């Protein structure tokens, strides 16, 4: 048969020589390679205890932001929802009453805000569309779960901890990105 390329290697089917039939030299050769790798730098990390730094443009789970006084930034303008290519975001607006001024920054606020994490593709367009700096993608992965229902994130899950009442949690939720960007 005519060969298509000349890259084909013809296998040799000769009987083994004496040294080859001992097998031991080949075994030691292989083991030497294995032992050599034990002293090399490890490619893996002990994941839950040790974590790799995120890329500066990493896009993880969403966070609904608050301002420095702890008031919610979101005004339910719907720009994130209209920018969302996966149509994962829904919300419902409400009017702020006079005694709620310490809770919400603007006259209107998002009474309900939901992101369907099953639909979300983590593209970050919501973050770009937001005129109020209210939503951004944090440095966290969406945790795994056995039920689909647990992937509908409401305001309870999305809202960043209060910066005055819970400063440590707030700092942790903010992530290291901001600090790194400053340096």
């Amino acid at each position, binding site marked *: 048969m005519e060969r298509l390329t000349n890259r084909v290697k013809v296998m040799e089917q000769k009987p083994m020589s004496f040294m080859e039939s001992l097998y031991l030299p080949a075994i030691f050769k292989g083991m030497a390679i294995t032992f050599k790798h034990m002293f090399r730098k490890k490619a893996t990390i002990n994941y839950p205890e040790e974590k790799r730094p995120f890329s500066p443009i990493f896009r993880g789970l969403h966070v609904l932001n608050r301002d420095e006084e702890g008031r919610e930034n979101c005004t339910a303008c719907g720009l994130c929802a*209209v920018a969302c290519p996966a149509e994962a975001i*829904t919300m*419902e607006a409400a009017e702020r009453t006079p005694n709620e001024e310490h809770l919400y920054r603007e006259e209107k606020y998002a009474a309900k805000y939901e992101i*369907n994490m099953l639909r979300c593709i983590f593209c970050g367009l919501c973050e770009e569309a937001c*005129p109020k700096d209210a939503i951004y993608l944090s440095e966290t992965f969406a945790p795994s779960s056995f039920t689909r229902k647990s992937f509908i994130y409401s305001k309870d899950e999305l809202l960043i901890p209060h910066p005055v009442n819970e400063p440590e949690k707030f700092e942790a939720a903010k992530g290291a990105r901001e600090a790194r960007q400053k340096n």
Partner: protein
Amino acid sequence: MAEVKTVKVTIDNITVEVPQGTSILQAARMIGGDVVPPAMCYYSKLEGSGGKCRTCLVEVSKGSEADPRPMPKLVASCRTGVMDGMEVRNITSDRVKDARNGVVEFLLLNHPLDCPICDQAGECHLQDLGYEHGKEATRYEFKRRTFEKHDLGPYIQLHMTRCILCYRCVYTADQLTEKRVHGVLSRGDYAEIATYIEKSLDNNFIGNVIDVCPVGALTDKTFRFKNRVWFTKPVTAHRDCSSCCGKVTLWQRGEEVLRVTARKDQWGEVEEWICNVCRFDKKKTSDWTIEGPSHVSRHSVISQGHYEHLVQPKETFTAVHDGRHPQLLMDIHSVSEVNDKTAKTKS
């Protein structure tokens, strides 16, 4: 019948024959397209409107056939009548473009940047105008004017800070209703739209001031913060109304009617006035005879997710699977609090 004398006018090198007495703006609208100057205060259905906002300024490079001298200053096209042989330059003139940018900057001086909150956002003429001619940032360093809140009754919400003093609502109240209780108080920077001594507006046609308002100064209180305009579906509908024509646009979300407005033409003007009963009280789909999705310009944000000639594809799954429906892995309405639980899911 006396023949109406027609005159020839050239706007941006396009010649059109119009009846005598037509304004330049109306002549431009007869041509249509890009040569039409934007108008914030002029409203063809309201007598005497126009001449206030100056966004429709055009350059008249030739006065008429009899007197070919150009007009020395830019003129407001909504208030200037055409002359035979007049040559007008709108988008072909750099002077006009420059002046319009300036006018838009002036209009936005005191206009608050609260589009994310405003219910008019998405169908706001000032938003469109600012998008087309506006600058990215303001040069104004002073405090914007603020007003004390006026209560205009249970149906109409007045945001005086957003007002650009176009006077459209004043003309509407004047010409549509018998008793005018709505006007502009004070002068200059302090000028404000108000019902005199906070009189409640109880006329049956007063709701039309919402539709004529080019900005979000007058909005529907029954629709206040209910939803964003672009998430609602405009549907043309009508009903038998004893006091008005009953021809409206319903803004629906699912089966729910969130808002009722009059039908608007391509210039954003109301086609026919509607009464308050139709506008505020008939908020059920069963009240209306639905004609179909209304036409939305492709360039409008409202056209997102809006399909005018939707043909539903034939569902083949059930036919192939002996009438079995595909298994639904999760019904979003059983989890979500935002989405309407009563809305039908496709089964």
